[in-house]
């Protein structure tokens, strides 16, 4: 059985990919009611600062920053997925309950 984290089939994905490609530099419109998502604005600014400084750092420091960016991206994606999932459940099941009542 495979042990290492699988590698995304980029070629396959690129073929499907449309013009709305995810872009780290794009500003996220924050949901004001969710303070957790608001912190993304700070992480975005930090990412940009780290990116700008990357050219002046050693390979080891650059690798460290790459790792930081990767983790931040994973954290942010997870937070958004959880947020939209809960939003879906709230909207559908609250409507459902209201309808039943």
């Amino acid at each position, binding site marked *: 059985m495979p042990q290492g984290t*699988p590698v995304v089939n980029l070629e*396959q994905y690129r073929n499907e990919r449309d013009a709305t490609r995810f872009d780290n530099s*794009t500003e996220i419109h924050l949901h004001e009611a969710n303070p957790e998502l608001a912190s993304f604005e700070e992480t975005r600014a930090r990412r940009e600062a780290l990116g700008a400084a990357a050219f002046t750092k050693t390979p080891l420091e650059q690798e460290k920053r790459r790792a930081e960016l990767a*983790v931040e991206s*994973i954290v942010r994606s997870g937070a958004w*997925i*959880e947020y939209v999932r809960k939003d879906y*459940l709230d*909207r559908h099941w609250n409507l459902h309950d209201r309808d039943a009542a």
Partner: protein
Amino acid sequence: MANVLKKALSLITGEEPSEIVLKMPKIRPFRGLTERELIQLESEVGSQLFGLIPEGHRREFFNLDKNTWIWHEEHTDADGAVHATTTRYEIQGNRILKAQDGTKYSYLEGQELQNLAVAVQMYYEKVMRGIYKRDPKTGQKLPS
């Protein structure tokens, strides 16, 4: 609502409402999906990120909650024995802990961390757009 229908039907048929059996569908056509069903849908998207799934194999890749990602691989060998590996990725502060089958633990680093980040980013884009109908860049709902 059912009473109104019963009454209307009794007026049409001339029979008493008690004699009329109305069978209402138990599942509403626009019933919302449960959290489990949403995750299953997401996992279908996630399983396709890594290319073709070999015949006889089953693959799952999904976000369990905001701090946990799951990758599961399963296949049956020629003798009928099922082999499965479940890997859990847990966000712990600024690191990602990889727990495989509850026995092997390590922090992701180097290329493996980048692989996970790319997979998660792809998953995010496809799930936001395909399942939740949201723009992955802004989080805003897409026009239907």
